């Protein structure tokens, strides 16, 4: 399964006016892979993820998702994907149960499927007991969990997350990590960005380190160690790489 390409990026670029945020990325991500993007603030991670999801239009380059060109087959591609942003904006006047219903209907799921899947997810993320409470009363973490439930309701093939662990409590983080591992085993492709290098180290099948709009290192943790002739952890390798890149 991991030889099948799920996402293919060719020469991906993004400019905001004169500023080049992403400076040409070529990347293949495989089906069932848990792929992590790390990098400092402003490295281009969020722009890359947003281009992958179609929320931003690339200045140049091509994105293929499961063999479909994102720019040409947008609607079909969107049915395969889900995105969880770094800030969990949700409809404050709706309850988690209603948000799940709403998103499920947008993906044209039938009522039975929405209810079964919704219940499963709400129970998993410990929101079942507050399923009818308006989200305006929720804490940041509860909102984040609601977003996760809604994003997963249509069982996406590709799951893209921007800083997903922010605001989650330790138990939820642990459960969520297990959940992601399980889902990738079932064939879901997961891509997420994080600043928590320990999480990347623990979860990632492959890691891409971004710096100033470019991928400066790519591979499994072992490959990165070999590449950088290091026995250190990712945090120290990351600092080393950034220093090297900055001095170039």
């Amino acid at each position: 399964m991991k030889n099948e390409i799920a996402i293919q990026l060719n020469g991906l670029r993004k400019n905001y006016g004169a500023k080049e945020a992403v400076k040409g990325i070529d990347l293949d991500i495989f089906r069932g892979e848990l792929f992590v993007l790390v990098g400092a603030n402003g490295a281009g991670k969020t722009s890359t993820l947003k281009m992958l999801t179609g929320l931003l239009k690339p200045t140049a380059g091509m994105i293929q998702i499961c063999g479909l060109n994102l720019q040409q087959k947008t609607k079909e591609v969107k049915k395969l994907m889900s995105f969880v942003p770094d800030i969990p904006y949700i409809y404050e006047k709706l309850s988690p149960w209603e948000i799940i219903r709403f998103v499920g209907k947008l993906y044209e799921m039938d009522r039975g499927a929405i209810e079964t899947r919704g219940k499963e997810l709400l129970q998993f993320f410990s929101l079942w007991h507050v399923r009818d409470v308006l989200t305006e009363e929720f804490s940041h973490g509860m909102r984040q969990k609601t977003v996760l439930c809604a994003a997963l309701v249509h069982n996406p093939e590709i799951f893209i997350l921007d800083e997903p662990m922010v605001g989650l409590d330790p138990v939820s983080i642990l459960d969520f990590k297990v959940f992601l591992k399980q889902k990738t085993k079932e064939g879901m492709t997961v891509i997420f960005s994080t600043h928590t290098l320990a999480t990347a180290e623990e979860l990632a099948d492959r890691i891409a380190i971004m710096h100033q709009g470019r991928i400066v290192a790519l591979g499994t943790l072992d490959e990165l160690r070999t590449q950088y002739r290091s026995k250190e952890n990712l945090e120290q390798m990351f600092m080393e790489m950034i220093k090297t890149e900055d001095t170039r």
Partner: protein
Amino acid sequence: MSPFGILLQFKFRSILNSFQSLRRRSKIEFLVLSAFILLAGAGLYFFFAQSFGFFQRQQPFGPILLNEILYLFTFTLFIMLVISSSVSAYATLFRSQEIPFLITQPVLWTEIYFLKLSEAVWYSSWSVLFITVPFMAAYGAAKDILWGSFPLICLIFFAPFVFLAGAFGTLLGTVTIWLLPGRKHRTWAFLVIGILLAVGFSKIQPHLVQEQNSIAGILSGYLPNLKAAKHPMLPSFWLTEGILTFLRTEPLQRFSWNDAWFYFLLLFSNAVFFVIPSHSAARWLYARAFFRSQDHGEVRKKRRALIFTSIEKAFDRLVWPSKPAMAFMEKDIKSFLRDPAEWSQMIIFFGLLLVYFSNLKNLQFDVLKDFWKNLVFVLNTVGVYIVLSSFSMRFVFPMLSLEGSKSWILGMAPIRFSSPLLVKLVLGQFASSVITLPLVFFSGYMLGIPPDKIIYTTALGFFVCFALTGMSVGLGAMFPNFKSTNLSEIISGFGGSILLLLHLSYLTGIGIFLIMSQNPGWLIFLTVAAMSLLIGMIPVKMGTHALQKMEF
């Protein structure tokens, strides 16, 4: 510099930055906005000037009537400023995301209060400026005093007036939150006050029109009914009386001591005095009210309200035109019903119109001659549309901007972007038609207007609702503000300003059309209806196009 000074300095800097970013955005955008402002201002001026010219010609009562209109205008302005400052106090003092940040800074509660009060006055000043400048200019032109000291004196008198209304409104808003921190309690309290006002209004016994063969007879019947606007304790009375006294004084004596300056000092001293209750409120009430509003969460319900379960059941069956479109509609209806801030204001404003229309017979408008009845009918109809326009701008226009912050839903959903826009158009059209058309019909009925004319005007109302809603939906998509979740901030942006001007221009056109065409044929009706459809549809089309190209 004191913390308050620093806060003000940074606010001022951020306003300057906003202006600069507007100038940087696009020269065309800047020019279009400036041109629209000038055009709309000129349109309003034309409308007021024509009306005042007409009244001025009704000798010997014209000048008196013009002064009465000025009292009525300033009275209405004062009420509107107080209400808008109260609403904005709730948004900026209690709901703004900036407040938690400010509380954690070494800043006093009083300083935060006065900062937000300054903001309320600043934003009020803009709306006052926009409507007052053409009004006062037309008034000045009708009295042949447009140039010279008149603009200066208006500025001098209006400045303390706006501050006073803003301070009073902000204080009222703070006290209300302190007394009624729970949203549901506030909604019920407002509804009860609304009903009491309605009952009180219906008990008013107006002066009767004894003689209506001459303007003088009609005026002598109605002018005493306007005495509420001339109560000597009202700041609007001091403002109007001050300006009128100034104008009555010989030009050479105007800037020496005279009664006009007494009224100015009355306004000014009250404005300055209001700093004291504001300071006390800021010191003693604001923090308490803030924490009470934070503590006062809604009761968590285990059982879901029947109405929402019924809505869900109904929408589970509706799949036309598409499931996603119906999902958007279900979500928008639920969100609307759960936000009392939206529907309670609608109930109050449209309720007041309903009460006024119910009293048209009581006010003896129905026994007036046809010309006057038609004029009142047109003014009532335009009044209904103006209220509708303000709600459309307040609630329909920002809907898409508020969706944008949930870009992970809207941007990722496998839907055509026309879906959410059309849903908002249909919902807006339905809600506005259901509310305004019966009101227009009722106003005509109570005035005893011929049935064919009532049907004609009511039917035209459907298309006016469409045009207003279409403009709000379309411009909401063309000029979204995805960065903010603050309604006031979204509305006061570039798109909101353009929309205000478009609405006013369109309604001015409709008002002039209704006044000029006393017996229009159906061909003219169809032409105006078709134009209104186009005026509503073109922005929606442009909005859909803009949305397809949009980045979230």
